[in-house]
């Protein structure tokens, strides 16, 4: 049995002003992947390819054992999809949407849908056009979750939400994670949201995957070393240093391959390590993007 819910192999897609290049992405069944990138990085294009809504120019995509885009209809039976730019039918009610989806999805869970409506404070008889943005996102999430999908694909679902609505949406996602068989791909440019729920992180920038790993591994291996250099000592060459900041005698090294031995290596080279700072996911993302862009322009 294939234990990968999503598998991208050498996927490329070219547009006039943007291209997605050689995307390799693996999402094991039951994992929650945070897919982080700046606006225009290629998150939505990747997700649209995953959903079969955009056809790749090259490479293969398999989703829940189905080849995309050829078997998209069968694959989408097990996918719940919510996208920031997806709207429900404004002139219909939430109840109409539930009735519409019920016969389509064999695992549709009406009692779960109704309990979610209560939890989200949504009135099923209210027309979608009368809902606020936050309520619309919750309604879309309700319709995706009540399908009991094996794969939940969320493309920037928290964008534009007020803090209360964001916490509620993220809370419900956390509850959905209780099902260990459910796989979630969560794209966002908000690293705080992603950090809360993901166990795997993938960074994308300018159409390329620049890094992908377990969240804990990311947080463990990225560090900032604050050094003090005596006048005759140069900045030590250490493995995995992606950025050198700070001032001349007080450099700050950012490394993506931190090991405790690095501190003694610095001391051996004549530098004093003042502090080893942990980094937030946002800092790791920004450093990662900057270092890659600098490498490309060098």
């Amino acid at each position, binding site marked *: 049995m294939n234990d990968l819910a999503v598998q991208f192999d050498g996927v490329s897609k070219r547009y006039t002003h943007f291209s997605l290049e050689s995307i390799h992405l693996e999402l094991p069944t039951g994992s929650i992947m945070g897919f982080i990138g700046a606006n225009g990085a290629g998150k939505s294009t990747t997700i*649209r390819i995953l*959903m*079969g*809504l*955009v*056809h790749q*120019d090259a490479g293969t995509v398999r989703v829940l054992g189905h080849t995309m885009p050829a078997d*998209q*209809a*069968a*694959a*989408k*039976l097990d*996918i719940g*999809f919510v*996208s920031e*730019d*997806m*709207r*429900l*039918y*404004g*002139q*219909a009610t939430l109840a109409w949407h539930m009735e*519409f989806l019920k*016969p*389509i999805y064999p695992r549709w869970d009406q009692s779960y849908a109704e309990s979610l409506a209560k939890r989200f404070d949504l009135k099923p008889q209210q027309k979608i056009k009368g809902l606020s943005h936050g309520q619309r996102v919750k309604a*879309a999430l309700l319709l995706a979750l009540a399908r009991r999908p094996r794969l939940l694909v969320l493309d920037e679902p928290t964008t534009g939400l007020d803090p209360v609505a964001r916490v509620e949406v993220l809370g419900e996602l956390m509850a959905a994670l209780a099902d260990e068989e459910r796989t979630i791909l969560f794209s966002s440019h908000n690293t705080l949201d992603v950090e809360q729920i993901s166990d795997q992180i993938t960074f994308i920038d300018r159409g390329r995957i620049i890094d992908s790993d377990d969240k804990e591994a990311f947080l463990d291996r990225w560090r900032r070393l604050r050094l003090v250099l005596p006048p005759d000592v140069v900045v030590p060459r250490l493995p995995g240093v992606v950025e050198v900041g700070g001032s001349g005698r007080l450099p700050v090294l950012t490394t993506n391959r931190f090991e405790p031995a690095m501190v003694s290596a610095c001391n051996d080279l004549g530098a004093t390590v003042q502090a080893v700072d942990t980094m937030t996911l946002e800092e790791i993302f920004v450093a990662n993007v900057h270092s890659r862009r600098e490498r490309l322009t060098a």
Partner: protein
Amino acid sequence: MNYSMVKSLILKDWYFQRHAILLALAGGVLSLGIVALGGQPGFTLGLILLVTVMVMLSAMSVMGNTIGERENQTLAFSMSLPISYLEYTTSKILGNLLIFVPYWIAIVAGCLGLIVAAPAIRGLFACTVIMAVEILISTCLMIAVALVTESKSWTIAAMVTGNVALNVVGYLVAHIPSIGNAMWGKAIQWTPAATILVTAEFALIALLLGGTFFIQSRKKDFI
């Protein structure tokens, strides 16, 4: 082909167009009533109203069901359902046609019935059939352009083209001797020229719809 999904999408589109369908039905009955009043003025006015109502129904259906999905950003919701794009295309073509064609058949049948019942205008039978099929072509053109281009502007252009073509075809048909000469007579005259024209019109409809499926099957980006 997942026919059950296609059916669900068609029923959804019908639900959202139910007011337009009812409005068109009321307009159609009113127009036929005016035609039934009899005489040349009643027939002309009723016919103009009928054509207007038919164009309105096809425009509202195509704009609402096809262009509206993209404009209102509901296309992503539809395409997240377990369907392929070909099934989506099938549902849109069939959905729009099944809204328009029953109405079109009822109105054309009513109109032809009135012509047959009124000896003074029986000569218009062939011309009415040809023009009725021309209206169907205009609707198919609008559906095809809406699906292929997904653009409101191009769909409006297709609607205008269809309406202009209706006048041009009407003028040309009236100037075909075997049809034009019989128009104001009191007997139904179905000529070989009328058969050729109607056959060509249905061939054009088949070409438009077949071409739409062909182009849609080669598309790579749907959102």
